Every structure is written in C-alpha cells, then in structure tokens.
C-alpha cells in the first residue's frame, strides 16, 4: 500500500498528521528544553546561591571568630569574658550551621550530579580545616583556663592563624568555584535558551514549508489529474477515442480515470463495430453501383453498337451503291477523253481540208461560230473538265473506301487489323473538323497487325480524337503516337486543349457524363470507348490538368 493508493481523504489526513506530529514534536522539544532550563535555574536559585551565601557567611563568621577569640583572650573581667564567650559560641554555631547547610545543599547537589569533584575536595579540606581549628581552639581555651596566656596567644598567632589561613584559602577557593559554577550554569541556561530558540524556529520554518508543500502537493494531486481528465474528455468530444489516461493512483481520481478509460474503450469498440458495418455497407453499395454502372454501360453499349451496326450497314450499303456509279465515271473518263481527242482530230482535219480547197468562204459560218464559242478555249476547257471528273471520281472512291473501312462495326469475329491504318481512317473521318485548325502530328511505329475488332477500335479512337479536337479552342495540336514491345501495343493521344480537373477526370468514363451543353453531346463517347478497350482486355488511362491538355494512353494486348 503506497501513498498513491490512499483515498484523497486519507492523503489529506496523513498530510495533516505529519504537520501535527511536526508541531507536536516542536512543542514537546520546547517544553523539555524549558524544563531543563527551569531545572538549571532552580539549581542556581535553590542550591548554588544558598551554597554561595553559606560560604560567604562562613567566611565572615570565621573572620569574626578570630577577632572574638582574641577579644576573649584579652577580656579583663569575667563579665566581659562571658560576653565574648557567648559571641564566640554564637559564631561557632553560625559556622556549624552554615557548614551543615552547605553540606545539605551539597548532598542534594550530589544527587543531581551538579557537584564537582573539585568542590568536594575543597569542602573535605574545609571540614578538616575547621576540625583542626576547633581542636586548636580547644587547646587554646585549655591554655587560657590554666592561665597560660603566653602560650595561648602564641597558639592563636601561630598554629591557629595558620589553620585559619588554610580554612580561609579553601573558603576563597570554594567561593571562586561557586562563582564559576554559577556563571557556567547561567551560561548553560543561556545556551539552552539559544539552542531551543534556534531549533524551535527551524522546526517552525520546516512545519510551514511542509504545510505549504503538502497543500501544493494535495492541490497538484487533485488539479493535475482533473486537468488531464478535462483535456482527455475534450479529445474524446472531438472524436478521438484512443485516449487513455495514465493515472494509476487508487484514490477517487484514479477510479474516475479508470472509468473514463473503460468508457473510451467501450466507445471505441462500439464505433469500430459501427465503422465496420458502415464499411461493409459502403462496399455493398459500391458493388451495387458498379453492377448498375456495368448494366448501364452494357445497355449503352448495346444501344450504341446497335446504332453503330445500323450506321455501319447503312454506310456499307451507301458505299457499295456509290461505288458502282463512281466506277462508271472513273472507268468512262479515260475512253471519253480518248474519244474526244479523236473527235478533235476529226474537227482539225475538217479545218485542214477547208484551207486546202479554199473553202473558207463556204465554212465562213462555221468559223464565225468557232470565234463566237471561243473554240480554242473550249477544247482546253474540256481537257480540264475531264481532269476534274477524274479527280472527283478518284476522291469519291477514296472516301468510299474509308467509309467501308470505318463501318466494319458489324464484324462479329475478331480479325487481324492494323492499328495504324485504323487511326489513319479515323483521322480521315475527322478531316473536316481538324482542317486548318488542328495540326495532327503522327509518330507511328511499324508493327504487325493484331487480332482485334477493328471497327470498334476505330470508334474508340474516333471518340477520343473528336473530344481532343473539341477541347482545342482555335489553333492547336494533336500528337498521336503508337508503340509496340512485342506483347503490348500502346496508343497515346495527346492534345493541347484546355484539359480537365480531377473531378471531371474521375467521371469521364461514366455513361451520360458530359461537359458539353445540352444537345451537344450524349455523354456516351468515352464510356463506349472504355467498354471497347475492356472488350480487348486492354486498359485506358487519362492524364490531364486544366490548361495543360489531355493525354489518353491505351494499352492493348498484341494477340495474333
């Protein structure tokens, strides 16, 4: 169980707990230190100070004792002796009492370990000094009692003075130690106060920092995931269902994030299902549309091929019917010319005979007629007329041949035919449309005839070329190129016309799609073309852009 796994409330409680523990420990620490301080101060006021006072008192009493003892020795009468004795006795009591007070305080201090070895040593020395001084005092009193004044004074001045000096010296040392110890205790109290203050301020600062950090952390803990959730929800709203939240905590926000993830997952799955269904529907739709398109195409092709078949039969019939009379003309022009030459020879003989027999006068009327009719010109004109008839017959024959060539639509079976010738025939059909306006640049490769429906192919070429011609406003060029690589025949028809945009390119093979005005085009041309190329197991592609012209590339398998 990590911190992350806790509920929000628990997290908050934990944070406040930490802060509370910090604050409590700061307080406990302060109270402890204050207790220590108080103990130190108590030690000074209740023990060290009285000890120092006792020693000071001792010092004064001891000094007084010396004086009183001297006064006692020199007391003149028993009354004053008694007074001095009582004063001395009181001083001894005072010294004893002070020593006992000191001892009591010392014992207490020892119990608290606030009593130094050095002081102990000094005190022991002091005790023994005092005992020694008392011994000497006893001797002194005995000497006085025995009226040995000299000896008593000597003792007072020598041994007792020495003893008193020792006692005094030890007292002074004790006072010094007490002073020092008191000062040290005060110093310790001061230090303790300072360190307590320092530690307390540090703890306070730490507590404040921890509180701030905790508050910030808690806010982050809530705000950051909520912000994540919000942005994720926005993303989902925009339709992106792949969003997954990486919030792993086990608190309420973690639960929310997990629910959110589940929601997006189910949504995604649902949408995927829907999309699949839609795709299936679309596919079916497309299949249907294709089928319908094929149906329409088939229908159109049927109509068209029927129409073309009729047209072909008609054209074939006409071509055949015209062919016979034309044959008459072309067959008769030569003999006619020959006959006329003969006729002119006869007429010329007539002239020669008349000139030889001087019969000009008899044929004067003939001459006049000749002049009137511009006989010479007529003879020449007849030649020209005959030439014209011959030319006309020849050209008519050519047209008929082309018509026949084009109208092989009724051909049921495939036959070997030349693609290049088919293109030529088609171009001839369009001669009038292209004349003086469109320059056709041919780049034909020579290759063998291939097995195909020549009439249908011609129709396909015708449709493309007619469109190319119509795409060109004013002057322009059409490039026709054929190539062959042994397996595939490629025909490229490229114009410098206005071109098409993408949308139009997409639809040009659809039946009844036309960019021309109503009545100008049926919208069947390229769809028939497409059908025809398909019949040949070939392929047709278009490359175009507005203003850049259009290129159709037809590939056909070269079967034989």
């Amino acid at each position, binding site marked *: 169980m990590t911190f992350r796994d806790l509920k929000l409330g628990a997290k908050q409680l934990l944070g406040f707990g930490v802060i509370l523990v910090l604050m409590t420990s700061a307080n406990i620490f302060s109270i402890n230190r204050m207790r220590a301080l108080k103990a130190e101060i108590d030690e000074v006021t209740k023990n060290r100070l009285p000890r120092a006072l006792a020693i000071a008192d001792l010092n004064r009493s001891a000094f007084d004792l010396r004086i009183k003892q001297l006064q*006692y020795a020199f007391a003149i009468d028993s009354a004053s002796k008694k007074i001095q*004795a*009582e004063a*001395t*006795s009181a001083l*001894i*009591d005072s*010294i*004893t009492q002070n*020593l*006992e007070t000191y001892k009591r305080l010392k014992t207490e201090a020892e119990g608290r370990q606030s009593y130094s070895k050095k002081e102990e040593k000094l005190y022991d020395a002091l*005790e023994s000094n*005092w*005992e020694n001084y*008392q*011994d000497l*005092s*006893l001797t002194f*009193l*005995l000497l006085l*009692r025995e009226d040995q004044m000299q000896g008593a004074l000597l003792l007072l001045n020598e041994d007792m003075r020495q003893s008193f000096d020792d006692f005094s010296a030890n007292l002074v040392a004790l006072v010094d130690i007490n002073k020092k110890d008191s000062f040290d205790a005060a110093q310790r109290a001061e230090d303790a106060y300072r360190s307590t203050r320092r530690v307390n301020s540090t703890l306070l600062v730490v507590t404040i920092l921890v509180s701030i950090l905790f508050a910030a952390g808690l806010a982050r803990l809530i705000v950051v995931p909520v912000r994540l959730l919000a942005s994720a929800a926005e993303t989902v709203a925009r339709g992106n269902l792949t969003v997954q939240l990486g919030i792993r905590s086990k608190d309420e926000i973690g639960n929310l994030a997990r629910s959110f993830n589940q929601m997006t997952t189910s949504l995604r799955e649902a949408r995927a299902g829907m999309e699949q269904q839609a795709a299936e529907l679309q596919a079916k739709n497309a299949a249907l549309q294709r089928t319908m398109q094929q149906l329409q195409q088939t229908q159109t092709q049927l109509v068209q091929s029927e129409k073309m078949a009729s047209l072909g039969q008609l054209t074939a019939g006409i071509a055949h019917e015209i062919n016979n009379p034309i044959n008459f003309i072309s067959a008769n022009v030569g003999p006619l010319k020959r006959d006329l030459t003969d006729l002119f020879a006869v007429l010329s003989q007539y002239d020669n005979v008349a000139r030889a027999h001087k019969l000009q006068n008899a044929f004067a009327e003939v001459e006049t007629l000749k002049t009137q009719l511009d006989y010479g010109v007529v003879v020449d004109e007849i030649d020209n007329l005959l030439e014209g008839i011959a030319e006309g017959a020849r050209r008519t024959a050519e047209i008929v041949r082309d018509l026949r060539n084009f109208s092989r639509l009724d051909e049921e079976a495939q036959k070997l035919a030349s693609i290049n010738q088919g293109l030529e025939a088609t171009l001839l059909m369009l001669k009038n449309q292209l004349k003086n306006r469109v320059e056709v640049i041919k780049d034909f490769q020579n290759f063998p005839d291939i097995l195909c429906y020549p009439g249908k192919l011609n129709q396909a070429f015708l449709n493309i070329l007619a469109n190319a011609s119509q795409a060109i406003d004013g002057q322009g060029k059409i490039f026709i190129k054929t190539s062959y690589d042994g397996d595939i025949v490629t025909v490229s028809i490229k114009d410098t016309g206005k071109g098409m945009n993408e949308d139009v390119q997409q639809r040009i093979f659809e039946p009844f799609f036309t960019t021309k005005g109503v009545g100008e085009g049926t919208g069947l041309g390229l769809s028939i073309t497409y059908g025809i190329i398909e019949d040949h197991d070939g392929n047709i592609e278009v490359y175009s852009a507005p203003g850049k012209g259009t290129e159709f590339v037809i590939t056909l398998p070269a079967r034989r």
Partner: protein
Amino acid sequence: MNTLTKAVLALAFSAASAFAQVAVIAHKDVPLDTLNKTQLTDFYSCEMKLWDKSMPLLVVDLKLQSEAKDAFYKFLGMTASRMKSIWLKKLLMGEGVEPLVVRSEEEMLKKVATTFGALGFISSSKVTDEVKTLLLLAPTEKQP
C-alpha cells in the same frame, strides 16, 4: 569508573565496615553495664559530667581519622567536627570537661583501662578484658 566497578567497590566497603564493628568501652569500675544511644550522645556531648555522684565522666576521643572513629560518629549521627564545636562551646561557657584526646586505638584502650571514669571506643576486635564493653555498635551501612 563505570557503574559495575562502583557497585563492586561499594560491596567491598560494606563488607569491610561489617568487620569494623565498634565497641563502646569504659573503665572497669563504671557503674553501668550497658548504654543506649541517647545516653551515649549525652555522655559524649558533655551533657552528663558524672557517671554517678562519685564518679566523674571523662570522654576520650581519637585525634586521627580512623574507621572506628567514623563508624562511632556515624552512629551518633553527627560529625567529629560538630562534636568538637559542642565541646568548644561547653568549654567556652565553662560548662564542660574537655575530652581526652588520644592518637591511636591502642592508646585509647590503655587510657580507658587506666583512667577512672573514662569512656571511649575502639574496634571490637581490639577489646580486652581490661575494659568494660558497654555497647556494641551495629555494623553501619556505608552511607550512600
């Protein structure tokens, strides 16, 4: 010195003091055979100057520090110094007889044996039949 060593030393001292049993002794002719603590204190602090009407009391004290002296004063509940201040005051006021001061326990034994009305103390092991034992001080606990 660690706590353990201290404890061991304390045990050793208490054992030693157990052996340092002190006997309160008196001249053979004193009229009492036993003494209690109050009597002993009174005698030593010169509150009583006589054993009885005919026999004066003479207190003998050891001059030097010794185990017996320590144990004796401890039993009385005062220090030698305190006792001396009492004697000193009595002497000043002319109320007491100064104690006899001896330098050793042997001297103490001799003094008590030979001085009429003498009262003293020695280690019980040193007691002879020259003196009368009035009180055997219980071995004192070593003071904490």
